[in-house]
């Protein structure tokens, strides 16, 4: 059991993450502080949620980039709708409306893919462009800082508070609970439901999945609906965390989220990927960003270092696989390997 865990991709990502933290901690001891933990988690929340939505699609063998557009449109359109009505209530209604829109938008992707036998990435590229254009033209092109009265307190709604010697009082925002709950749900969904197992089956071998009796179209619709739903949650959460509604939020970030999912061990060709790996992948990218600041690398050179680290992290597994193949140790990774 333990030796099995030690061999997983997730474990090597975990080791890299721990190693990175130790190195940065040695350079700058202030890195090991409660505020670093809280800040990293806070910055990761929306990426966790979006990555959890993307993960099942990747496992099913697709690549989607439209989830960022769904996040932007659902949040911004909901805000325009409610503020137009003079709404001054809390955040719940925001989440309800945005989630309904998100599910519909996710289902649109799924419908197009299923009905017209299209490649997921191509459809998502079209809807990505379309929804951002829709947002900017029909909804508005300016950032909106006017939040309803009752939602203002939400920003400081912490579940944990701590005193940090460096920055004073700091807290962990309540929305981390959403990320945890959603993560657990997706984990359960992928591992213990027939639909979830079907997702792995589709990614492993689509024709075999069809012949085994999985209702592929229905499964894909559910997966796309889930993606839209989670994108909407992420969009609204981000808006309230940053205290403004931005029509082009996340527009440059779909590939970063995808990179996090893939770094976490999901195969871009489908059939492989876990929630734990995704959590580690997202954390890795966030910790790298934070670590570079703490390690004292000048701001303008940070992106170069991130690039080098990404090149290193993507090369290592590839080199390792080549080494194993030369030794004749590589067996096809099947759908069941999880």
């Amino acid at each position: 059991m333990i030796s099995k865990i030690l061999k997983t991709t997730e474990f090597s990502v975990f080791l890299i993450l721990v190693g990175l933290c130790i190195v940065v901690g040695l350079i700058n001891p202030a890195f090991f502080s409660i505020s670093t933990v809280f800040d990293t988690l806070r910055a990761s929340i929306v990426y966790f949620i979006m990555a959890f939505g993307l993960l099942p699609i990747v496992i099913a063998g697709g690549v989607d980039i439209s989830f960022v557009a769904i996040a932007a449109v659902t949040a911004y359109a909901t805000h325009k709708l409610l503020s137009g009505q003079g709404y001054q209530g809390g955040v719940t209604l925001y989440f309800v409306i945005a989630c309904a829109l998100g599910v519909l938008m996710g289902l649109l992707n799924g419908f197009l893919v299923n009905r017209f036998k299209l490649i997921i990435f191509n459809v998502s590229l079209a809807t990505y462009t379309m929804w951002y254009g829709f947002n900017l033209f029909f909804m508005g092109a300016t950032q909106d800082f006017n939040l309803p009265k009752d939602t203002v307190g939400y920003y400081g709604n912490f579940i944990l508070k701590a005193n940090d010697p460096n920055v004073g009082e700091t807290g962990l925002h309540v929305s981390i609970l959403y990320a945890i709950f959603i993560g657990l749900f997706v984990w359960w969904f992928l591992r213990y439901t027939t639909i979830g197992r079907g997702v792995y089956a589709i990614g492993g071998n689509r024709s075999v999945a069809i012949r085994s009796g999985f209702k592929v179209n229905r499964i894909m619709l559910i997966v796309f609906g889930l993606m839209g739903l989670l994108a909407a949650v992420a969009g609204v959460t981000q808006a309230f965390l940053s205290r403004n509604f931005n029509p082009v939020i996340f527009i440059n970030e779909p590939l970063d989220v995808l990179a996090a999912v893939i770094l976490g061990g999901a195969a871009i060709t489908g059939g492989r990927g876990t929630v734990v790996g995704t959590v580690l992948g997202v954390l890795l990218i966030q910790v790298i960003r934070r670590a570079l600041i703490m390690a004292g690398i000048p701001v303008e050179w940070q992106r170069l270092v991130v690039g080098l680290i990404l090149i290193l992290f993507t090369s290592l597994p590839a080199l390792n696989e080549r080494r194993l193949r030369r030794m004749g140790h590589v067996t096809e990774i099947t759908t069941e390997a999880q």
Partner: protein
Amino acid sequence: MQSNPEKPTLLGRSQAARPLRFQIDRQTVLLLGVFVVLVVFFGVRSRTFLTSRSITSMAFQLPELGVLALAMIMTIISGGINLSVNATSNLAAVLAGLFLVRLLPHEATPDQATLYVVIALLLMLAIGVLTGIINGLLIGYIGVPPILATLATMTFFTGISTGITGGKTVTGFPDQVSVIGSKTLAGIPIPFVIFVIVTIIAYLLLFQTSFGFKIRMMGANPTAASFTGIDNKAIIMKVYIVSGVFAAVTGILVMSRTMSAAIEYGSTTYVLLAILISVLANITPGFGNVFNVFMAVLILQVLSTGFNTVLLGVSGSSFFKDFSWGVLMILIFVINYFLQGRKGQQE
């Protein structure tokens, strides 16, 4: 998955006498149809759309994205993808820009300045080659999946530009730089001439050389390609070098038109647009028609300029093009599906 009707003829066509012509396929007809419909629609709706001024301005704008898309399709046909194209073009522009600003003496004669500009342009092409080598090493020789490798190098190349410039836009070039981006040749804007030349080069490379045949072979089936004795690694290396050089040409066009070199010019949006053009042109691993790329770029520009003139005065009118691009793409997918006669259905 789309079934591809050209598959059986791949070998036959290339072994034939290689006639020097653009292949016309269904997508070409479809794109031509869409193009004509759009031009007529905007021509009727707007008085300014079909004026020589508006056509000239379109011919100045579209080559940047067109050449970038050509850089993208080379890799897609080979079975990969190159997300670092825009980072490459910006890196080339930034380094060449710094070369000009820092090293060109202030009291230089026009001839000297021209010489420096020519050296700067060659430097940009060399940077294109270098970035291609890095991508080729990662993808071909180390075996990193193309999407991950080029995502990493995209960050890395942008990182180099950011680090060297400190995030600032490079400006203050000699006037000779603007020649490419603002002058015309026999009435045709020079960027457009360059776009046409690069399109023809891409076509010749892909369809008139054994290198191109190997690229398509490898894209269609890498395992089969390697069994026929093709050195996949070397081909991948060359493909990404060509892609890098095309990206550097985009850098030249951007730098010359804007007279500046910005690290974030175009950002991720340009990369995704280049992929969007490839998808619109129905470029798939192993298969593709360069003329379709040309048509796809024209159509995007017509939609952009067309809606700008029709919606003149409406707030945020320039954003409507993005919406229309997405809708058009979905429409073309759907039309294609019905034209294909629902072949390739699995259930």
